[in-house]
């Protein structure tokens, strides 16, 4: 099984009021969704996050929920490439995103706002292409078998 990690970058406000005063809090959040290539979510997988400041020191750790999702709020003052690693039972994936992508707009790609991270597995739109390629490879093996069986029957081809 190979693993796929998708991102959802969202920006939302949390109003809080007391005695007529209102405070709007804006939280910039990144959500990841990890799944196997079968579409099965990587539930309760471990998540490691490295900030652009250091690829050696862990910035945050966590665990995906039953849907393979995990959300965190990167420090907006740290710009650069963030690295997210998800792992479960010897299977996993590492992907990255630019802090410049934290524009406050949900990213495009999937209907629910998630987008495929770099180096992740093939998208569902490429599924047909994958099956065609698999069929071509299988036909290559069958062709090899036919070639050599013909050689046996009739001497040299």
């Amino acid at each position, binding site marked *: 099984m190979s693993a796929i990690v998708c991102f959802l970058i969202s920006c939302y406000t949390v109003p809080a009021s007391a005695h007529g005063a209102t405070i709007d809090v804006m939280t910039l959040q990144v959500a990841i969704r990890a799944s196997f*290539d079968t579409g*099965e979510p990587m539930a309760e997988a471990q998540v490691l996050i490295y900030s652009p400041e250091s690829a050696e020191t862990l910035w945050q750790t966590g665990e995906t929920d039953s849907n393979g999702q995990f959300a965190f709020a990167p420090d907006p003052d740290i710009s650069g490439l963030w690295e997210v690693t998800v792992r479960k*039972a010897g299977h996993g994936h590492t992907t990255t995103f630019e802090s410049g992508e934290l524009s406050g707009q949900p990213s495009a790609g999937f209907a629910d706002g998630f987008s495929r991270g770099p180096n992740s597995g093939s998208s569902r739109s490429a599924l047909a292409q994958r099956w065609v390629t698999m069929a071509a490879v299988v036909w290559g093996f*069958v062709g090899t*078998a036919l070639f050599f069986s013909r050689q046996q029957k009739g001497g040299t081809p």
Partner: protein
Amino acid sequence: MHIPDGIVPAQVCFAGYGLTGLLTFYSLKQIDRQGNANSNIPKASLLTAAFFVASSIYIPIPPTSIHLLLNGLLGVVLGYFAFPAILIGLFFQALVVGHGGWTTLGVNASMMGIPALLAYHIFQLRFLGNRQREKTPFWLGTFAFLGGSIGLALTALIFTGVVITTVPAEFDVGAEQAAIVTLMLIHVPLAILEGGFTAMLVLFLRRVKPELLTGR
């Protein structure tokens, strides 16, 4: 049951490639020694195709789903051809399906190829002792079952050993090891299933084309 890129350290990847190189050389040498290699290529090619496709066939075994492997079956039916067949199949799985990885191709080939060679030798045990035993469908099926199931079970054990001992310290090692052991246990029913399938295939070949079965 494929180790993807980035899961094991570089030293393990290098060792995997080294071991795979040696075993490929040894297997090709044995194939050459047995002679008449061309006659076995059609069989090896078709089973390489089956091995390549098998990793895309998932069987739901709660709490997850696992895919077929067929390395034990390849060992039983192909003999020493199994190792290069598995190496080629894994190459195309990494290229087309994304199973495994380029850095771990050697580790995966050794992890699945060594049990395949062992499965071949288990199947050859039918020639030991009683001469009539090799001709009995019961014993033929039994040794094929043992080869097919032990081939997969050993692969699961090697996977567990390699991955469980190389969990990076940044992770919760205990939780990861527990998840790996759970995955290994889930492969027990698959080992029985593949053993049964191997036995059925061997008994079928015995009836329709016995010369395809490896051995004396």
